[in-house]
Each structure stands twice: as structure tokens, then as C-alpha cells.
């Protein structure tokens, strides 16, 4: 008996959702027709990103936030992303530990995902997994991911509201005030506020937010000034303040049309990324399977050809821009 996976997802079946997510992760061909049927049912869920250095308490925060969201009668999908080893391709996915109780709530679905070599802090299929959870009826989708340094900013392209979680004593406070991760936050959470240095961190981040407001170029969106919220999630302190901040951001977005703009931007990004990935995968497959790749690398190593002209050669062989 064949299972109608798309139909089951639309009815909210966790088993079907879990299976379709696996198809997406493994680039199984069965995903495409399924996603085609699911996509019209997306767009309803609100996406919250929770990012920050390891050890800042993101998982605990996600767990507590989920409880409050559930208390409002909304359902929650959680995607917890952890990095894959670049050497072995394996991963220890340890975010679920902090959420095992809430996972039993039928209104909550938690999936751990490994980045599998994708850069930017998320996995290649995270955006599509959001679509599946959305189509299955989840009202809020929380994506929890490691965000450090300047490049792990993919979360901001997918989330409606991005929260950056900081904690005192991890040594990263001042250093992390560089471009990239510090710039993407709609809300800054100073977690572990019961620890020494929390107040100082709060003051520093608040100061920076005010400074940002003064120096930010006119061309950048300056209508939302990020909120800075203190919390000690493990003690259930400040979590409702964070939720209020998210709601505040949500109503701001909806009020001045930014919400639709961001969604449009997200759709464009996601589509371009998918096109990029497909074209590149196709090209790479053909070049390596035909042995052509080896020949080209040999030619470069022997200084018979340079990479630049080789690229042009490959493009002219493989890519034809249609006219009109």
C-alpha cells in the first residue's frame, strides 16, 4: 500500500513529516513532487531564528520559549542545526537533550539536522524543511543554529525574527561585536543573566545598538531598533520578555510592509540558491563522472591551461543562455 506522504503531511502526521524531511536531506527524488503539492500550503508559519555561540543556552531557551508559545495555543516546529565534521561527515546532534520533555507534546515537532558541509550555519535543506513544517500546520517554527564569526548569517535569510543569544563569561562579548553575526539580530538576548558580567554585557550591547542607530547608513533599514533583553532561561526568567520582544518585532514588520518585503527577499534567495545548487550539482556530476575534471586539473597543474580560461570553456560547453 503506497503512502500518500504529501496528504499525510497536510494532515499533520509526524511520521510523514519526518520521512519527507529525510528525503529533503538526502536529496531523494521523491521529495520534489511532494514539495510541489505542499508548497501552496506554506506561508502561514512565523519563523524565529535563535543563533549564537555554543554554550550560550540556545537549546534551553528554545525549550522554554516553546512552552510559552504552546500555552498560547499555537503549535511549534523546531529545527536544531549542528555542524557536521568536515573530516568524517558525521555529527553529534546534541540540542534535543534539552528539549526531550516538550518533544512529547503532540503540538511540538523537533528535528535535529547536520549542516553536511553547507556553510552559513544552516544545512542546504533547512529552508525546505521549514516549508514542510509550515505545510503540516505548525504556527511557529524555531530554527536553532550555531552562529559565530562573520559568515554564519544564513539564518537571517530564512527567519522573520532573528534572536542572537549572548552570555557573559564566554570571552566572546567584545570580539563578537564585529560585522556579520552581530549585525543580523532583531533581538539580542543576554542569557545567563544570573552570572557575573551579565549587567556589563547588557550595557555594552545596548550601547552598541544605540550607536548602530546613529551610524547606520540611510540606505539600510533603520525602522527597527533591536531590542536587548536579559534572561536566565534555565530558571525561566525573562523568557516572556523575549517572547514579547518577538511579538513586538512581528507587529512592527506587519505594520509597515516590511514583512512582505522580507518574505519576498527570502523567496528570491531560496529560489536562487536552489537553482544554483542544482546547476552546480549537475555540472559537477558530469565533469567528475566523465573524467573531464581530472583532465582539466592536470592541464592546470602542468600550466598548459589556466583556471580562468577553463571556466569559460566549461561554461560555453554547458551553459546556453536562451534568447529573448
Amino acid at each position, binding site marked *: 500500500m503506497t503512502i500518500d506522504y504529501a496528504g499525510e503531511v497536510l494532515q499533520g502526521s509526524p511520521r510523514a513529516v519526518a520521512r519527507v524531511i529525510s528525503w529533503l536531506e538526502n536529496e531523494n527524488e521523491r521529495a520534489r513532487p511532494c514539495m510541489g503539492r505542499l508548497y501552496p500550503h506554506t506561508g502561514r508559519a512565523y519563523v524565529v531564528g535563535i543563533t549564537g555561540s555554543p554554550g550560550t543556552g540556545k537549546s534551553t531557551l528554545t525549550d522554554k520559549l516553546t512552552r510559552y508559545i504552546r500555552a498560547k495555543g499555537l503549535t511549534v516546529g523546531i529545527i536544531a542545526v549542528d555542524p557536521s565534521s568536515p573530516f568524517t561527515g558525521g555529527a553529534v546532534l546534541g540540542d534535543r*537533550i534539552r528539549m*526531550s520533555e516538550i*518533544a512529547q507534546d503532540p503540538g511540538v515537532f523537533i528535528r535535529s539536522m547536520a549542516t553536511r558541509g553547507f556553510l552559513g550555519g544552516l544545512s542546504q535543506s533547512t529552508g525546505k524543511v521549514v516549508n514542510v513544517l509550515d505545510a503540516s500546520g505548525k504556527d511557529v517554527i524555531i530554527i536553532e543554529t550555531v552562529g559565530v564569526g562573520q559568515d554564519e548569517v544564513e539564518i537571517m535569510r530564512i527567519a522573520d525574527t532573528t534572536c542572537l543569544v549572548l552570555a557573559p563569561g564566554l570571552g566572546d562579548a567584545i570580539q563578537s561585536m564585529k560585522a556579520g553575526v552581530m549585525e543580523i539580530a532583531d533581538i539580542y538576548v543576554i542569557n545567563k543573566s544570573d552570572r557575573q558580567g551579565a549587567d556589563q554585557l547588557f550595557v555594552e550591547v545596548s550601547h552598541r545598538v544605540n550607536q548602530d542607530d546613529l551610524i547606520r547608513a540611510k540606505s539600510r533599514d533603520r525602522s527597527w531598533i533591536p531590542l536587548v533583553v536579559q534572561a536566565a532561561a534555565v530558571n525561566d526568567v525573562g523568557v516572556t520578555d523575549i517572547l514579547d520582544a518577538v511579538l513586538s518585532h512581528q507587529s512592527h514588520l506587519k505594520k509597515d510592509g516590511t514583512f512582505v518585503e522580507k518574505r519576498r527577499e527570502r523567496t528570491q534567495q531560496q529560489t536562487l540558491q536552489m537553482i544554483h545548487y542544482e546547476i552546480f550539482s549537475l555540472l559537477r556530476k558530469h565533469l567528475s563522472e566523465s573524467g573531464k575534471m581530472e583532465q582539466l586539473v592536470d592541464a592546470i597543474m602542468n600550466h598548459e591551461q589556466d583556471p580562468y580560461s577553463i571556466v569559460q570553456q566549461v561554461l560555453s560547453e554547458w551553459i546556453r543562455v536562451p534568447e529573448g
Partner: protein
Amino acid sequence: MADKKIKIIVAKPGLDGHDRGAKLLSRIFAEAGMEVVYTGLRQTPEMIVEAALQEDADVVGLSSLSGVHNHFFPKVMELLKEKKLDDVLVVGGGIIPEEDIPGLKDVGISEIFGPGTPTPTIVDYITKNVRS
């Protein structure tokens, strides 16, 4: 299609307080290229099976050091069957007396790995017996 990774849940049902072994095995599985969801201490069978379902796990590894295996391991198998997760490979480890092993295998645990089992043996077993 991308390479499929083996997704394994490493779980400690019951009230064990020590998880160094389970954590070590989690790392070893990851080193072997698997994606390991380590669920931590004090898991109920319900939590373990819910994790297996949502994570679409290929394998569930159960660890028990305090003699609760005869109670908890069959309970996990029962719930897996109830949720129709019939093709999930279930293996167990920890402190499990020889005489209990046949009973556990009878309820569907594929293999039990006692202390001192060379870890490559465990990895090999899983790789060979996991669903395709």
C-alpha cells in the same frame, strides 16, 4: 541523490547517572560518519520512541548500567511497534548479564554489546544491518 547518512539515537532509559560510555559511543558513531542524536540521561521509553519517530532514525542504541534493561528495553520495542517503526534497528549495551540476552533478542533487540566490546565491532554491525 546525496550520500545517505545513518541516523542513530543513543538513549539511556531509566535512572542511570553515568553516561560517559554513551557519550563516547556517540562520538565514535559520529567519527564513523553517522549523525547521532544523543538524547541524554533519564529518558522514558516514550521520549526515546518519539525521538526515533521525529528524527526518522535508522537505529536506536539503548544503554543501561543499572539493571533496568529487562523492563525498559522491551517497553521501547513495544512502543516502536505501536508507532509502526518496524524497520528501525535496535541494539543495546551496558551492564547486561548473558542470561538476559536471549530474552531481549526475543522481543526484537538485534544485538547486545557488553562492556569491552571493541567499538569497531559495534560500528560494523550497525553498518551491515541497518535498513537501506
